[in-house]
């Protein structure tokens, strides 16, 4: 008995020893900054290096300032539109090609994944060149098709649509990759059974592929929600949050407060709100899991 207990303790110690690097570094670079940010959100550190406790004033500033409210609403809008679009498109594309010739599947996978691995700075710069209303690709087509205006970034609506399109293109590749991997692993007997029962491609998609891809859908939902909530580079390089705050997001405004306005208190408060929003949205996955799965 003693030997058994000793062995269990030894094995536990070994496990903790291997976990130690992640725990230590995780605490240093993740837990500590999050905690510090939470505490800093109750302080004002802007004036003369002094740290002054201001209570909930930073949060009050966020919820009473029109610009911050626009940032929160824009962020929610991008999440509500972009994430479902990524999931739906990912499912449709993966569902269309997963059982095709493997070379064809690989080619499509690579083509869709390239935007994911390209640097966001490069991606945003290329989009900026394309959208240049004087000499960009859009301007060229505008001339050919006699469009009224080629300045897609000057209108609030079209600027938002552009941002959503860029977010979808950047994140779609990974989504398709995961769905294809999931669908390839589905038991072929189920697919054959569907055929035998007279089901068409849509029936296969609706009754077999989508339900069996639920775990992947949850993963894709969580990762993409987090990515869209944190969107910053494409906003900075493409629209600078404009026109007139139409594409300002919480992360963009957080950066402006922290590094342009030197208002780390308000920036920290915005960060805490972003963290809370991420937790709430990701926790919503529980709505889509069955009681048995949760147990």
């Amino acid at each position: 008995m003693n030997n058994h207990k000793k062995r269990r303790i030894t094995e536990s110690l070994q496990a903790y020893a291997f976990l130690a690097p992640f725990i230590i570094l995780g605490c240093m670079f993740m837990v500590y900054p999050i905690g510090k940010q939470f505490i800093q959100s109750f302080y004002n550190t802007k004036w003369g290096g002094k740290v002054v406790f201001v209570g909930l004033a930073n949060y009050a500033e966020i919820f009473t300032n029109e610009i911050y409210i626009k940032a929160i609403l824009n962020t929610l809008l991008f999440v509500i539109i972009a994430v479902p679009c990524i999931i739906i498109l990912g499912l449709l594309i993966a569902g269309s090609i997963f059982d095709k010739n493997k070379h064809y599947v690989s080619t499509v996978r690579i083509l869709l994944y390239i935007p994911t691995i390209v640097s966001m700075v490069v991606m945003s710069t290329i989009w900026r060149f394309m959208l240049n209303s004087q000499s960009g690709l859009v301007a060229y087509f505008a001339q050919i098709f006699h469009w009224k205006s080629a300045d897609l970034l000057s209108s609030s609506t079209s600027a938002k649509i552009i941002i959503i399109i860029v977010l979808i293109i950047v994140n779609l590749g990974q989504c398709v990759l995961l769905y294809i991997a999931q669908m390839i692993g589905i038991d072929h007997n189920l697919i054959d059974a569907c055929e035998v029962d007279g089901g068409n491609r849509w029936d296969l998609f609706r009754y077999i592929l989508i339900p069996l891809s639920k775990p992947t859908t949850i993963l894709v939902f969580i990762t993409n929600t987090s990515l869209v909530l944190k969107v910053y580079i494409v906003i900075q390089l493409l629209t600078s949050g404009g026109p007139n705050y139409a594409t300002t997001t919480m992360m963009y405004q957080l950066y402006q407060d922290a590094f342009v306005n030197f208002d780390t208190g308000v920036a920290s408060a915005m960060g805490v709100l972003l963290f809370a929003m991420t937790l709430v949205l990701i926790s919503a996955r529980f709505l889509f899991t069955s009681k048995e799965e949760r147990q």
Partner: protein
Amino acid sequence: MKKQGRNVLAIILAAVMTTGLAACGGGNTNSTTAASTESKAAAAETSAQSGTTAAASAASNLPSNVKITLWTDQSISTDAWQAEFSRFAEQYKSQNYSLDIQAFAGSDRSTKMAAAISSNSLPDMGLYAWFTDTDWCHQGYVLDVSDITGKVKDQMYPSVYQETQLNGKSYMVPLWSNYWGMMYNADMLKSAGLEKYVPSDPNEVTVWTMDQFNEILKTVSASMSGNQYCLPLFAADNQADTTNLLFLTMNGGQLWKDGLSDAGTDSKVVSALDTMGGWVKSGYTNKDVVSKSNNDVPSDFTNKLACFSYGYYSNYKDYLKQMNSGSIGKFDIRIAAFPKTDNGKDTYQMANYVYGISAFDTKDTDRETVTKLFLNWLVNDKKAMTDLSMAISSIQSIATDKDVIAANPVFESYAKKIDQDHLNQFHGNVAGYVSTRAMLFPQLQAYFGGSATAQAALTTYMDQANKSIQNYIKNSVILNK
């Protein structure tokens, strides 16, 4: 034994992994730590080697083995600055002073300074434009250098000396002034039949009346084709927003009144914005004002897509250098002032960018002592002030020196035409001016995008700017001492 061996191996592996990951992490912190450790080691070694150093420094009461840092967003010649610093350090040879220079893009300035403030790693000196410095002054990070500038006050241009003061104290040692104006392609004006509006002297700062400027816009635009346009207007971000501020005052309006923004209540400012809108509607400008940044304008100008560009003397010199080296095609580039009417009378204006060095509060008395020693030497050394100046020196005798003017013929025209009455203090020296820059361009976007009238856009800008300014006034370390 076997089990113990496994345990020991597991612990060793875990320790190695931790050490390896810890060594990889930290990034810049490590390099900073390494650099400071290296400098401390070098300092200790130097101190140990020169046995007379301690005695000498003790006798002079000056710190020894000090390295000070200079940050700048200007394209300075680091060699020239190091050479001049060496001349200064020669006087304190036994103290062993050195200078580390970091130059970066203007767009990185705020981020770098914010990171430095947060991490208590401010540079000793910052060579920036005065208007970008003021917020840091009000936040309490810049040292009072009145004791240095006060001694050379009589040698400086009065406007420059006063510009760098807040609440009666100097927070910058001004080195040079760069006048922000327009640059234009004179070949395009000549091609459009407007030779009469191009001075025969290529070094003369061109001045037009408002009517003449409108005629130029109309005629040159009519002579253009394809993607070409005459006058760039931009509102994508706050880069070169001085241009927009100068246009907004072209009808004689005032942006600042009693330390606050007056943009929304001054009808002349509102009418100026409508004038700009009229230019866009008439086709004199680029169509994509909302999404165009000033960063895009130089390439349009050098590729002859635009007739005008904006900048100061340093930019003009850069263009000439690029033409001489063949980097860009040659054309007749000239400097012009912004046209303006004031109570019906034609006049003109440029904005004054005063560049100088601010000393930051690093809380390190040794470094602050050496910094002030250097600044005191610099502002009193004619050779250094001449060699390091990138435009019009703040010292009158240097700015009007025959050799300086011979090397920069445009300076003679500046001296004749650009005096205090024609210089626009576009920032008003208001508290929190830098923070208000983030509020102007969104409202210009709203106006040029058609979602707000000029009055509504400027009123919103004014309200937002004044909220920030009043916050600065309430909390300013300088104003509330």
